[in-house]
C-alpha cells in the first residue's frame, strides 16, 4: 500500500492535485508490480510534464487576476496638486514604514504621475488591510 505524501506547501499541493486529476492518485497505484527502468523514465517524464503544466496554469491564472484588479481603478481626476500630495502623505503613514516607494520628490511630479501613485497606494493600503 502506498503511503500518503507528507503535508505540502500550497503550490506543490496544487501541482499534485493536477497530476492526480490527470493520472490518478496514490490509491490507484498497484505497488505489487515492479516497474522497469523504461516505465520509471516514462512516469518521471509524465510527472515533469504535469508540474510544468500546473505552473503554466498558475502563471496564467495569477496574470488574469492581476489584470482584473487593474480594471478597478478609482476616479482621481477631481483631485490635483497639493490635495493629491496630502492624500499620498496620509496613505504613506497608513501603510507604514515598510512601504517601498521610489518617488521622493513629490513636488517635482506632474498631477498625472501623482494620480497614478495615489491610485497604486490606495490599492496597496487596501491589500495591506485585507491581509492584516
Amino acid at each position, binding site marked *: 500500500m502506498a503511503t500518503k505524501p507528507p503535508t505540502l506547501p500550497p503550490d506543490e499541493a496544487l501541482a499534485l492535485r493536477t497530476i492526480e486529476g490527470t493520472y490518478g492518485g496514490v490509491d490507484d497505484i498497484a505497488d505489487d508490480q515492479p516497474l522497469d527502468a523504461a516505465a520509471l523514465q516514462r512516469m518521471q517524464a509524465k510527472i515533469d510534464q504535469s508540474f510544468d503544466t500546473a505552473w503554466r496554469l498558475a*502563471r496564467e491564472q495569477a496574470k488574469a487576476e492581476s489584470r482584473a484588479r487593474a480594471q478597478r481603478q478609482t476616479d482621481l481626476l477631481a483631485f490635483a496638486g497639493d490635495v493629491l500630495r496630502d492624500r499620498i502623505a496620509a496613505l504613506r503613514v497608513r501603510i507604514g514604514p515598510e512601504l517601498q516607494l521610489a518617488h521622493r520628490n513629490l513636488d517635482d511630479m506632474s498631477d498625472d504621475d501623482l494620480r*497614478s501613485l495615489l491610485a497604486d497606494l490606495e490599492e496597496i493600503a487596501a491589500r495591506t488591510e485585507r491581509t492584516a
Partner: protein
Amino acid sequence: MNIAPLPIRRARKAASAVHERFRIRDPKDIDVEGIAALLGLDVRHGGLTGADAVGNASGGIIRLSPRVTHEGSQRFSVAHELGHRQLAHRTNNAPGACKPASVHGHIDRGVEAEANAFAAELLMPSKMLRRRCEVSPVSLELARAIAADFEVSLVAAALRFVELTSERCAAVFSRAGRVVWAARSDTFVPFIERGLWLRRSSVAVDCFRSGRLHDGAQPVPADAWFDHDADPNAEIWEDAVSVPSTRGVLSLLWIPEKCARALRLDPE
C-alpha cells in the same frame, strides 16, 4: 577570464532561483507578467516617465511608462523592477523612477546594474542560451534570433550575447556620432571609451550618415574602434544597425582568432 562582481552574481542567482521556484524550463514559459503576479506584483501601464514599483510585503504594483512601447522593452522593464524587489533594494533613497537609459542601456555598477543583471538572467537564462552563443563568425543575426525567441529588444539580446559568448566581442551603442556605452565579452581586451568620437572608417558612422539600416557584418580597420601599435592593416568585423527609437546605432564588434594574433592581443 573575468569573474563578475559579487552583487551581479548574486542578482543572477536570484533570477535562477525564480526559474527553479516556478519551474521555468523553456523560453515560452518566461511570462514575466505572470511571474510578477505570482510574486505579488501587478503590472500597470501609464502614468510615469520611466518604470517604477511601489509596494510592501502584501504586494505591490509595477508601473510602466507609456513611452516604453516595444514589447521586449516592456518585458525587460518589468523584470528590472522585479529585480529591485527580489534583491531587496531599498528604494526609499532612490531619486525617482528608473530611467529608460539605465534600464535599457549598459551600466557597470550599482543597484541599477544589479537589477539589469537580474532581468537579463530572468528573461534570457544562461542555461538556455550559453551553448547557443558559441558561434563563429559573429554577427547580429544571432542577437536577432535571441530577441525573437526570448521576446526582448535587439539591444538587450546583443548585450546578453556579449556576456555569454567566449568570442572576442563588444556591443557598442553610439548616438550623435559618439560612443554612449560599450559592453565587452570577457575575452575582448581592447577598451572602448565612453564619449569616444566615432571614426570615419567604422560602419556605425556610415549608419548615421546614410541612415542605412542593416547590411550584415563587414571587415573594418581595427583602428576604426581602438588604438593599437600592431599591424596597421589589421582588421576586425563590425555589424551595425540603426535603432531609430533611440536615434542611435548598435554595433557588434568581433575580433576573430587570426586578427587577435595580428593585433598581438593574446599573451605570448
